[in-house]
């Protein structure tokens, strides 16, 4: 059976003599030589002259953004997850410059696709400007002032982990090189030198002077993949908290717990909220802490309410439980005359707060929970046993229970 033709009969959209013509023909021939049918190939194109190739391919095609086609190709290859399909990405040297990160990422992950960089050393579609792959000889010729060496994308891709990367300047070798690249499982990169007859030399012999030497690099690596898994509902392992303790509370109460990072403030707040649910109340809980979660203040807000909670803001807390200076500094401005405030005895406050030795009786990690337990007992909103019930199956149940019961010694 004759192989399907990957190259269509569409007119070449390139200038006469443009290297992209040979490049395109070489890619389609290599695919045919390797036996790929039109529906086995996805051709991903970029922006620029090299991005005009779509109509030339009888395969599937997808035409994306400038420089992003290697990333788009990664998505297609992972999405297809089928070694019988071949993803070919084509971009120019401008695209390879702006999208360098995508090339490195595809290499690092060794994603099964072939990237072909049509390197004509310049931006052809916008007037011949130099790119990150333009060599210094070429930049001198273009009278460009900078002397930065070009990116060696073949070496960069190799160092990032590409299975196969190669630079080829001699068009006689294009076909065999492409076949080797396409036939290599994993990520392969082929940088092909090509002419821009409008903005650079007209002859390949002149052009060779301006190019970087050929180079061929190989990594023996496993193809990159992602795992497709069967997963369980996120709701499966959450414990239901139905009412089992009495509460005569009729209103809405806002509790602020304030302390330092690592002091169990957030977990004490969660436990208070859960205990509230065991007492048949509606609850909300939110935390506030600096971006660096391991240092500084840690503040949590809990609302307990007989009615369903809509608005979860808490501008004026009814109760404030403060166990460290960090916490006090953060929340002291929110203290009002009507609020019930318990602070640790070591915090210096100019306020008629009730001081208690939370840290002394429960330690730094248990102080917040001790304060919660103490306030529950004082207020009688619901029994402290609800809080004990919350922690009874916890990994650290013993320590938590001890913190809760430490309130008896205050």
């Amino acid at each position: 059976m004759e192989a399907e033709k990957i190259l269509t009969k569409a007119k070449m959209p390139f200038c006469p003599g443009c290297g992209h013509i040979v490049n395109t023909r070489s890619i389609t021939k290599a695919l045919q030589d390797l036996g790929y049918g039109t529906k086995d190939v996805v051709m991903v194109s970029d922006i620029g002259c090299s991005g005009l190739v779509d109509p030339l391919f009888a395969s599937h095609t997808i035409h994306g953004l400038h420089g992003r086609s290697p990333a788009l190709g990664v998505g297609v290859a992972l999405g297809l997850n089928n070694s019988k399909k071949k993803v070919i990405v084509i971009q120019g040297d401008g695209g390879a410059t702006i999208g360098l990160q995508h090339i490195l990422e595809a290499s690092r992950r060794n994603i099964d696709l072939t990237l072909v960089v049509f390197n004509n050393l310049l931006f052809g579609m916008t007037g011949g400007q130099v790119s990150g792959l333009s060599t210094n000889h070429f930049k001198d010729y273009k009278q460009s002032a900078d002397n930065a060496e070009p990116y060696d994308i073949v070496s960069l891709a190799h160092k990032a982990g590409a299975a196969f990367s190669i630079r080829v300047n001699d068009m006689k070798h294009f076909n065999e090189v492409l076949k080797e690249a396409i036939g290599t499982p994993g990520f392969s990169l082929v940088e092909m030198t090509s002419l821009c007859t409008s903005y650079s030399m007209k002859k390949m012999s002149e052009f060779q002077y301006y190019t970087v030497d050929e180079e061929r690099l190989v990594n023996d690596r496993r193809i990159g993949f992602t795992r497709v898994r069967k997963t369980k509902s996120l709701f499966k392992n959450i414990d239901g908290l139905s009412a089992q303790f009495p509460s005569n509370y009729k209103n809405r109460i806002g509790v602020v717990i304030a302390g330092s990072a690592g002091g169990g403030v957030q977990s004490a707040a969660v436990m208070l909220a859960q205990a509230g649910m065991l007492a048949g109340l509606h609850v909300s809980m939110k935390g506030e802490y600096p971006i660096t979660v391991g240092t500084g203040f840690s503040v949590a807000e809990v609302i307990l309410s007989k009615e369903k909670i809509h608005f979860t803001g808490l501008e004026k807390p009814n109760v404030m439980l403060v166990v460290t200076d960090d916490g006090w500094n953060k929340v002291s401005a929110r203290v009002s005359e009507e609020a019930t405030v318990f602070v640790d005895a070591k915090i210096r406050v100019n306020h008629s707060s009730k001081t208690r030795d939370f840290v002394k009786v429960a330690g730094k990690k248990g102080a917040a929970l001790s304060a919660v337990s103490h306030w529950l007992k004082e207020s009688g909103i619901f029994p402290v046993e609800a809080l004990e019930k919350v922690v009874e199956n916890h990994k650290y149940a013993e320590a938590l229970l001890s913190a809760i019961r430490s309130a008896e010694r205050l």
Partner: protein
Amino acid sequence: MKTTTSKKVLIDASKIMTEALVQSGADVFVGYPITPSNLFYSYSKERFPEFLAGPDEISVLQWMAGYAAAGKLPVTATSFPGLALMTESLNMAFMMELPMVIVLVQRLGPSTGSATTGAQGDLKFLEGVISGGFSLPIFSPSNFNDAWTLSREAVKTAIKFRTPVVILTSKEMVMTQKSFDINSLEKLKKVDRTPKDFEPPYQPYKAGKDMVPTFYPLGNKQYQVRLNSSTHAADGLIHKGSPESMQNTIRLRDKLNLRVDEFSFYELDAEDGAKDLIVSWGITADTARDAIKNLRASNKKVSLLIVKTILPVPQAIYDIIDSYETVTFAEENLTGQYKQLLVGKRTSSKYKMVNKFGSMIEPSEIEKMVNFK
């Protein structure tokens, strides 16, 4: 079908939305960590059939587009700085007509602003995010029930209309835990993705009366698929300036704007004889629910409109606001972005605004504005 026994748990909306997205058939989460969307990242790592950690937000959207082109339904979650980087790729996905869901968790801006402070400040950016001003479908949940149902609707709309869909939410919605009965949520089914019938021959962008072309993935054995980010015709190829390709782009506007009734969600709590209307959305909607309760308790006749399909604007929203003498817009930004979206920047005695920056609007702030003549 609802189950009869309740199961009250302490939960946040990130978990509810992640679960709903997966149950509705989302296949892969591609993430780049950014506060305050990180709970989506961690829940998705556990729950999505496939999970990828992108190296940057441009890659995230490109990978998602690749997955979508290969027939998968991808999801990501981000906040403004991430969306800014995704913008060009989002335009690409819109132009290619690729289904995907982006959860945008608003935080206080401008720029990096305050990462752990909520806001409702990205609506105007989203309104213009597609060059040419084309609307993406944008849903905004007002509570945990919406978080569930709108996640399902986002997947459904993305597939049905072949488009990226944004779920616009806020830190206060997705990071606050509340007591909630998860058994009250309807069990969701995977959205059917069987390609719909088409008039042969197959062309990737040939649409019938419903204005949405039949989707076949790249790599399929039956039909050649050509997807294109540049202006293209039904064949998926560039035909610069041809009437057919211009018409194809105009169709992208029409398929959503003319069919918005199929994904219009809002809640009107209308009071008989009320002349005043409160309009809110997203995180401020629950504040407005409290405000309306308090106003009615003091014998004030007032109605409440909570908008959940933010864009395109359903005609019903205009009809509702036209039928009231005063309309008070409550939203957590300084500029009244939803108000601007509906009636422009111009002030008038009919339209009042309750705005706040850096903390949630309180019920009393809305009540005061409605009572003020």
